[in-house]
């Protein structure tokens, strides 16, 4: 039992240890420069990422409060990878920041919360993890300490999070009221699709939809994304959404399987709305952070198409897509974060003529945007193809046609950014920037991921074989 705890909770324990190390560093490191601190932190995160690949085991703990298996380990590894990349990209921003250690302690606390949430085998545990992950997140949204917008973003996030948590709690309590249990494994046979249970499900769905910003629960997204520091924005859009999606898929496919027909219709409606509205708003954006916010809303719509397929391909394609989405979105955010940290420029007009002065950054951003748009040979093509293919398995070609149409609309605005960088003339383009090693490395990892992932079928095969255990 005691050794079990150490092996099964390995991911959570390592993160907790890192947080404690940072706490001690905080106390005893008066003379440390920011660069030294950041290097130490990044090495710790790298160790954390590598350690995720060894000694993984299946099992449950504390009754069935906590469970883990290969799929859950994989999901945690993906989140670790994303956190590592974001941390490397934040280097240029944090090297002049006063509160580096606090930032990382809060960031890792949210990651710990997400890990606990993914591993949850019980709604109670799930809710604890969720709260641990959202409250520190609102705090780090406020980390551009001089900007009023940043505090506004934090305020908006905390209010909307509290509201969605409330919805979730109400849903959970109704589930408990109708079935008498909160354990995932015991719940499923007890669900009979009674009206109260359906109501509970709608509340749960709304709560999740808030967290992954699905239309019509998306209104907080753009403002929070715009106000927060770019590193936090990318964390919100990739890691936080990724974690919630993992849980969402798991809950839908495991717990609410008996009412699959009901949630299929709901997902159908939500995905159509999300794709169309996300696209229409993305077209009109000039600030690149807002633009990526709406583009990420659209991507959630495509993911819902994949989830609605409800075959084995569904979860496999969602996880595969999320892996690719981490590379593509972080590639794009990496460039924008870097440029914003050095020059403070964030609008599309500022990026006109960007290619003349910064060809490397332009190519990274272009390849990432192509991957988000799903253009081969980037990995985004494979991700999106399989996602929509999973959705097509149901035979609902109406949904597939709408998704295909939205892919064209989304291509339009991605190409608009590419056009601004390559084709538009500009009297005062962003000057030539010299890139720090760590952010550059992170960008190269993203580009490499985008190019390689589609051509290594073993990755998809592995995820597919694991998704049986969902």
């Amino acid at each position, binding site marked *: 039992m005691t050794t079990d705890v150490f092996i099964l909770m390995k991911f959570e324990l390592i993160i907790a240890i890192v947080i404690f190390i940072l706490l001690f560093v905080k106390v005893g490191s008066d003379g440390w420069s920011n660069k030294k601190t950041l290097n130490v932190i990044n090495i710790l995160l790298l160790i954390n990422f590598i350690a995720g690949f060894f000694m993984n085991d299946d099992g449950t703990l504390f009754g069935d409060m906590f469970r883990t298996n290969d799929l859950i380990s994989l999901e945690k590894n993906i989140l670790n990878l994303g956190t590592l990349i974001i941390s490397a990209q934040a280097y240029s921003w944090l090297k002049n920041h006063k509160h580096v250690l606090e930032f990382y302690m809060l960031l890792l606390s949210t990651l710990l919360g997400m890990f606990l949430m993914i591993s949850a085998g019980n709604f109670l545990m799930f809710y604890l993890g969720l709260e641990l992950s959202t409250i520190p997140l609102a705090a780090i949204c406020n980390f551009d300490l001089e900007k009023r917008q940043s505090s506004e973003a934090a305020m908006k996030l905390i209010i909307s999070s509290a509201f969605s948590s409330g919805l979730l709690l109400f849903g959970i309590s109704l589930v408990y009221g109708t079935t008498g249990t909160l354990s995932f494994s015991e719940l499923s046979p007890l669900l009979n699709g009674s009206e109260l249970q359906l109501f509970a499900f709608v509340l749960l769905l709304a709560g999740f939809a808030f967290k992954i910003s699905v239309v019509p629960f998306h209104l907080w997204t753009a403002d929070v994304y715009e106000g927060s520091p770019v590193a936090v924005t990318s964390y919100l859009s990739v890691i936080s959404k990724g974690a919630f999606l993992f849980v969402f898929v798991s809950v839908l496919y495991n717990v609410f399987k008996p009412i699959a027909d009901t949630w299929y219709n709901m997902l159908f409606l939500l995905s159509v709305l999300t794709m169309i509205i996300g696209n229409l708003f993305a077209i009109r954006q000039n600030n690149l952070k807002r633009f990526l916010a709406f583009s990420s809303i659209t991507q959630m719509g495509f993911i819902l198409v994949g989830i609605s397929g409800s075959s084995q*391909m569904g979860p*496999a394609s969602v996880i595969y897509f999320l892996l690719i989405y981490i590379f593509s979105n972080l590639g794009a955010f990496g460039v924008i974060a870097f440029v914003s940290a050095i020059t403070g420029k964030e609008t599309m007009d500022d990026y006109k003529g960007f290619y003349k002065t910064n060809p490397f950054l332009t190519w990274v951003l272009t390849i990432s945007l*192509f991957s988000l748009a799903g*253009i*081969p*040979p980037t990995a985004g*093509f494979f991700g999106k*193809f*399989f996602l*929509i*293919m999973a959705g*097509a*398995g149901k*035979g609902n*070609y109406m949904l*597939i*046609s709408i998704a*295909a*149409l939205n*892919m*064209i609309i989304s*291509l*339009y605005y991605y*190409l608009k950014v*590419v*056009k601004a960088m*390559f*084709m*538009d003339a500009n009297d005062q383009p962003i000057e030539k920037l010299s890139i720090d090693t760590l952010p550059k490395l992170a960008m190269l990892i993203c580009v490499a991921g985008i190019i390689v992932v589609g051509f290594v*079928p073993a990755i*998809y*095969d592995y995820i*597919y*074989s694991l998704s049986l255990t969902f």
Partner: protein
Amino acid sequence: MNLSLLILIPLLTAILILFCKGIKQVRTIALVGSIVQLSVTLFLLFAYWQERATGNDSHMLFEFNQTWFDPLHINYHIGVDGISIAMILLTSFVVLAGILVSWNTQKMSKEFFFLLIFLSLGAYGYFISLDLFTLFFFLEIAVIPKFLLIGIWGSGKKEYSAMKLALMLMGGSALVFVGLLGLYFNTNTGDGSHTFDLLQIAQMHIPIEVQKIFFPFAFVGFGIFGALFPFHTWVPDGHSSAPTAASMFLAGISMKLGGYGCLRVATYLMPDAAQAYSPIIIVLATIAIIYGAFATMMQKDLKYINAYSSVSHCGFVLLGIGMMTQTSINGAVTQMVSHGLMTALFFAAIGMIYDRTHTRIAAQLGGLLKIMPFISTVFVLAGLCSLGLPGLSGFVAEMTVFMGSWQNPDALYRIATILSCASIVVTAVYILRAVGQAIMGPITDEHYNQLTDATWNEKFAAAILLIGIIAIGIAPFWLSNLISPGTKTIIEHTITTATLK
């Protein structure tokens, strides 16, 4: 022979270009790469003949099948028949000529040649694919380089044209995407699993109701690439804004992706639906032919003349496919090859003239034959091929399409054939008028006297394309022998499924 070479050589060339410094290295690598590619395709042609001579009469030769995504039954499956070889030959001729024509591109030359080579990679991969996933993958690869080529190096309202072209072509591929998924989920390999394999799907009998739903998706999707009326509007804008080499690639290669897809995927895999929708295809193709011809009459810009005439000429491809007789499909394939070579040559000549005179308006030119005899001769030859002069490839192709179309005795088909034939007269009018204005007559501008004739690279480029045009024009039998086993398989397939019903 290993067909993957056809993808690996351009890939290697493109990667090498990334590591080059200066225009001289870049263009040398690009030239060497495309010459090697041309030799490989010629070798492929001979290997194909040799294989056929030894009595190997399987549908596809040099097949290679490698699992890609096992759980989804997606394979990297490649192979060629005569039709694919004809298209591959066309591609390698046009690519080599395009590289030579852009020899002096100073602006961002590295990116320019990289994108050209990358575009050709998509085309090669597309023509050898026997798996619908692979095919779709390569089809989309060939779209985005065009956006950048037109938007960065183009002229006129280039950003608008680039965006329009990219969105319309992606719209086409989105339709194809839905069509392919629909096919996939209606296949059954025996154990309940699905397949993207083109040859396997051809052996299955997809229910006619399913075919009728998904045939329009696939056909219109590919049709957008092949300038199907009314989705042809990207053609004039895209072609006229593109830099010379990109126009050549667009007209010579990209539009052929559409025709090939209509034939190989839509018609071959869904023969019943193809029969059922044939009248609609015929009507649309005839409108494209006539509308394209009359629209060309109104154009003053040489590039627009050629672009609109491409709409008209590509109409013949779709007409041939829609007629569903072996001769007409033979004609359609020949027309694809012939039109590819001929428009590429035409655009090359127009590009050469524009580089020197800085105008493309036919009325502002004049008397060019006296100043630049070589370029003018090339221009006239391309024009004559376009209007279907015997001895050049255009005549062979259009004649075959008409013969095949006439074999279809239905009244509608007869009327369509007659109307399409009549368009040749219009073609003659606009071609001869353009030639008369631009090439013949007195020299309109005295500055033109200082202009020089073609340089070595331009001569070489024109010669390559002319060889192809004349080789088909004088001795068409080798091409028709090459493609007819492939078209025969397709047409027999439609007949057997028709009798099965």
